[in-house]
């Protein structure tokens, strides 16, 4: 990364800055310095759910080499990880564990929903046992479509995530203002998950047919 990124959003004219740089001084905002460091060292969780996990592993191997983007340190424990790549089908039996693992991750934390299954249930959406998108329970930062997404796509989603991290503001970021985000763990009641979604992070899409009707009555 160049110093350009470090100086993002600074009111310093170029001459002064280059003069300072020549003297070995880099002037930056805390925000951009912090985001630069965080974005360049996102540690993912070793967390494979289904087929997509294999492509996630492939993205870490020599051909695609995720370490070019600073994310080669896959941590098996959620306590040391920043990024959860939900790589595969989330079933109703597995969803509570996914949320629980998310709750255990320290802030700042991000989530990539990898593959059609994690986004919406994918090819198995019709199934009685498949959760129709992990974003019903935890906030997702990047949606990565594909079945399975290619390893290059995994890298691109990581780039998008880094872009997002670069815009974060320490003062208003929930990671610093609210402390560790924890969401209620759903429970499998024999028929379905209870609650069926977490209203804090997800609302069922409004039915487009509803609106004109409401207007008509009003």
């Amino acid at each position, binding site marked *: 990364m160049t110093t350009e990124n470090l100086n993002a959003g600074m009111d310093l004219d170029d001459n002064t800055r280059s003069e300072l740089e020549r003297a070995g001084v880099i002037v930056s905002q805390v925000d951009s310095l912090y985001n630069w460091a965080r974005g360049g060292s996102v540690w993912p969780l070793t967390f494979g759910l289904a*087929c997509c996990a294999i492509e996630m592993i492939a993205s870490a191997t*020599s051909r695609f080499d995720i370490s070019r983007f600073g994310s080669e340190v896959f941590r*098996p424990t959620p306590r040391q990880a920043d990024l959860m790549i939900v790589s595969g089908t989330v079933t109703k039996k597995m969803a509570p*564990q996914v949320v629980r693992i998310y709750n255990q991750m320290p802030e700042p934390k991000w989530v990539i929903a990898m593959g059609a299954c994690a986004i919406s249930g994918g090819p198995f959406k019709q199934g009685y046992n*498949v959760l129709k998108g992990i974003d019903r329970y935890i906030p997702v930062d990047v949606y990565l479509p594909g079945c399975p997404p290619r390893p290059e796509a995994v890298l691109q989603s990581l780039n998008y995530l880094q872009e997002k991290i670069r815009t974060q503001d320490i003062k208003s970021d929930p990671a610093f203002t609210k402390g560790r985000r924890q969401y209620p763990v759903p429970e499998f009641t024999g028929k379905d998950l209870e609650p069926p979604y977490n209203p804090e992070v997800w609302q069922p899409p409004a039915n487009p047919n509803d609106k004109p009707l409401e207007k008509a009555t009003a």
Partner: protein
Amino acid sequence: MSSATAIAPNYELIQQDGLETSLLEVSMGPHHPSTHGVFRMDVKLDGETVVDLQPVFGYLHRNHEKLAENMSYLGSMPFTDRLDYFNSMTNNWAYALAAEKLVEIEVPERADYLRVIMAELTRLVNHVSLVGFFINDLGALGTPLLYAFREREKILDLFEQASGARMMCNYFRFGGLRNDVPEGWLDRARDVVDHFPVFLDEYEQLLCENEIILSRTQGVGCLSRDLAISAGITGPMLRASGVNYDIRKVDKYSIYDRFQFRVPYTDGNVGDCYDRFMVRMLEMRESIRILKQALDGIGDGPVLGNAPKVFKPKPAEVYGRVEAPKGELGFYLIADGTPKPYRYRVRPPSLINLTVLRDMCLGQKVADAVIILGSIDIVLGEVDR
């Protein structure tokens, strides 16, 4: 020690030389780096020794069979890809084989050759990745897996050129293949196959006589011949326990009777993790032999037989099976005269091989339970379906 009994009344106390211990229950998984997916083992430990083990699965139950019973026969072909997601080609084949029995379609010769080529390439992919993961479980983090995936990528490139997808190929059709391979593909395949032994030599040199691997795997997780047979184990695991059984030789499905190859198996005295590892290493050599013969013998011609446009078989029951890299993969179909199967059942090798996990782990150390699981070679997509 009465206080300990009061805290945990269910714990069994073991007396040894006047000292008492209580059993420790550990739940390994479903999120565990070495369980190869979402699999849980509830292990009871006495110190480091496994005294009881209960596999818990179903975390990836995706209703495969039920979905397939609600769609057309061909419609579930892409779903078979996702059973054992390392080996989509052999999954396709087993399903196609079963469906072809329902309506008796002739498969053109070129398609048969290509099927064999794809299946054997798949076997290479599976075994090479398995060995990588297995060594990973032993504690050699990364390096062997990186080697394995380097080779895997070369074969996946071939799959991609032929079918358009790296992993989920969806390449087989009833009566042949979806499309012919592109121009020059056979030469590229020959190139990959010719260079594979170079890599295998290196891999074997690094691993087969490695002191650490020998001491970690020999005598660990022994599976006796009798138990293997009565539990219905198939594939490399059965052969490592000393049974000469390979469906490619037994059924001679497709054109496997045209090729010269041997089936590696042991004398059955040990059947430990090392045997299972070595059988797979040797099988890769045999796959290369088959591949060379198939690439030399392949001729021109169509790749899709005259399959009916609407697949509507008469009422019948069929069972089609192939020697998948993990064992016998079979599809059992009951047709009732409609375009959908009345019953669609998968016989997944991973699940049935997993049934002996407890027998193999009892009395072993907990760290070895991880290796034993790795040596079974399971894929949860297939276990849970």
